[in-house]
């Protein structure tokens, strides 16, 4: 059914997408430009440069900039942002499982409830050890086991350190999911729910929108936002400044409020990488939960029962799940 619909209005949509793509490319030429400033002017023809290099004239009423429109070609999306080396630092001492990062991520990527790219685990390293909240994105490993096993080059490592997925290329063999030791990847087992206006977008590894059934996806560090000079939504949304995002080449990371030296931070706070002994060389560093800002219970008490169930084994051992 959906395919038929697309065919019926295919030509119109093609032009529309063409226009959108062109405007987006033009508007985002400079990184800090806010794209939403481009408002359409009615009944006016505008000349635009198509991705193929032709000049086309289009009714300006078709122009409306959309977020998540990939602003680079698929080839550029495989190359990465020149000169960058993205890195993230997660301060475990500050996390109280507020789950604002998850909500923001889900919203930005149009993820349905419970299919989380970003999860918060409750870890307890040993019997006597104190449990702590552990937010986990994709680690964008420098020696990524997932990329090694992909048979079709659908998931790849970029020059700027990111590991992304081309969901138009992915055949859905799930080998990468079996290979990832960090359970980062999620699969679209059924037709994903995507808002109507995003369904016809041309997918790009930098956005992976719309999601496609039978393909793998995961946290992408939001490179489309990075190109516009914005932080990932998880970093922005965290009320406690848990996440620091930045560029290893500049040796700086920021959580939106404070900007600190990356090397110094890792050195001072004994930063480590999760399961480093596997040799995967993750690009996400954790600062141990020393001098915590919140007791661990703060992240548990006010959770809905359904979510409490996830952590009940550790928080209330012996008590049956609801």
């Amino acid at each position: 059914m959906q395919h038929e619909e697309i065919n019926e209005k295919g030509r119109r949509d093609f032009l529309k997408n063409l226009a959108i793509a062109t405007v987006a490319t033009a508007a985002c030429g400079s990184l800090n430009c806010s794209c939403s400033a481009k408002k359409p002017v009615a009944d006016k023809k505008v000349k635009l440069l198509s991705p193929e290099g032709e000049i086309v004239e289009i009714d300006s009423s078709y122009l409306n900039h959309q977020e998540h429109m990939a602003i680079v070609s698929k080839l550029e999306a495989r190359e990465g942002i020149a000169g960058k080396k993205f890195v993230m630092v997660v301060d475990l001492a500050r996390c109280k499982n507020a789950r604002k990062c998850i909500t923001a991520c889900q919203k930005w990527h149009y993820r349905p409830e419970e299919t989380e790219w970003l999860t918060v685990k409750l870890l307890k390293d040993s019997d006597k050890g104190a449990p702590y909240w552990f937010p986990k994105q994709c680690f964008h490993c420098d020696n990524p086991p997932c990329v090694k096993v992909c048979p079709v080059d659908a998931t790849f490592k970029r020059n700027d350190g990111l590991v992304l997925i081309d969901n138009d290329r992915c055949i859905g063999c799930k080998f990468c999911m079996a290979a990832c030791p960090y359970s980062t990847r999620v699969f679209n087992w059924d037709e994903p729910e995507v808002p109507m206006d995003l369904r016809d977008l041309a997918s790009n590894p930098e956005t992976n929108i719309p999601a496609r059934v039978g393909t793998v996806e995961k946290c992408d560090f939001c490179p489309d936002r990075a190109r516009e000079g914005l932080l990932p939504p998880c970093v922005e949304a965290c009320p406690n400044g848990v996440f620091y995002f930045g560029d290893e080449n500049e040796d700086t990371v920021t959580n939106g409020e404070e900007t600190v030296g990356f090397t110094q931070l890792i050195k001072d706070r004994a930063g480590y990488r999760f399961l480093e002994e596997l040799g995967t060389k993750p690009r996400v560093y954790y600062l141990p939960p020393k001098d915590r800002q919140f007791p661990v219970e703060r992240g548990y008490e006010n959770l809905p029962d359904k979510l409490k169930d996830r952590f009940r084994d550790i928080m209330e051992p012996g008590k049956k799940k609801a």
Partner: protein
Amino acid sequence: MELNTYQQQAFNHQRAEIEKFGKLNWFFVIFFLCWIGAGAYALYLQIAKGHGVTGMRDNVVWGLFIVNFIFFIGLSYAGAIIAGVLHLLKVPWGKPIIRLAQMMAVISVVVGPVFILLCVGRFDRLHHLFMYPRIQSPMTWDVMAVITFFAGSVLFLYLALVKDFAVYRDAKLNIPKWKQRLYKFLAIGYRGAASQKRHLIISQNLLAIIMIPLAIIVASILSWIFGMTLRPGWHSTIFGPYFVLGALYSGCGVLIVAMWFYRNMYKLNNYITNKHFVNMGYVMMMLAAGYGYFTFSEYFTSWFGSAKWESEVIDKLFSTKGYGWYTLFANAAGILLPVLIVAIPATRKPGLITISAFIMVMALWVKRYLIIVPTLETPALPMQETRMEYVKYTATWPEWTLTFAGVATFLLFFTLMAKFVTIVPVSGLEDPHQQHNHQHETVPVKTETVQPA
């Protein structure tokens, strides 16, 4: 094609089987087709609704399908190795069962890969495997391996059949025209001339020499889909040889069951004798011992070393709250039972050997399940899921239906093949009572003059 009296006798005994397609055969064919039809419906659901209709989820990303893939592909490699060894070593009693082994190789290498395709989320993008292949991926190695092996095993079976096709062509069988023509075509003008004999034997020998290492390589590559990941229970240096031995062992069991079935159904007692069961029983016992040794090494090193992540898998495998009973069955029925049955003279009988082989094959299927599922249910990070189906894998009815459809396809191919070629090859057959003065089939000297028959 000229046959000696013993071969003629063997052919006459079997000719009715390729001439007639009896009621029982129709019953089997329809029965299998029904299963395949049900499987087709399950497949339709899976394609139309997505993989959500299976029990696979983000943690256990592969389930019954990949278990079946390993199982069938293993049978195939075993068929090739058994046939190759029997051929190359010119094992005197091997002739009557070589064809069954070769048929098993071809049929299972057709059925097996279907199951790995069922694991793939996007059927419409399978061509990407050839458009954008990445040579680093063990999956790409496997695609190449299976395709190479398929070509090899088909050729291996066909070359062994050429002489027989010539026999069927010349025998004035009471069969429809198309079948007559097909035999004529497939016999590629073989008349038993010395040069033809020579080429045929050389190519068969060469192919047997190629098929044995090929089967070992491709079985290892299959194991590396798992062995190359970092997961406990998979990431093990023993995995290549372990899979080779497991394949050979389960294939040996299926071959014994097939021998028993055709011996009784087609009254082939004179050709597939008790000796065949006992000898194959010995082979099975040796393989059981080897497989048991590998299994022990694998579990023992993991358990003794007791690294945290490894231990979690071992605990699940050996605890009664986890997969303990399955592990017990897989090892008791899959390793001890065949050893005992064959080792004790009183139980070393065709019927019992066959029953133990059949149970062993089931146990080895369970063993493959134990290799796949518990490891996938044990990720490094705790699962902490609200959706229980994401934590524990339970196969759904479409998966089971497709599994049985695969078995039905396997059996259907056997049923049809047995109506097209004789189960016991007639052309190369040797009279066991005259073997003392029989000369092995050797490559005729090239200088011999060609004499068309």
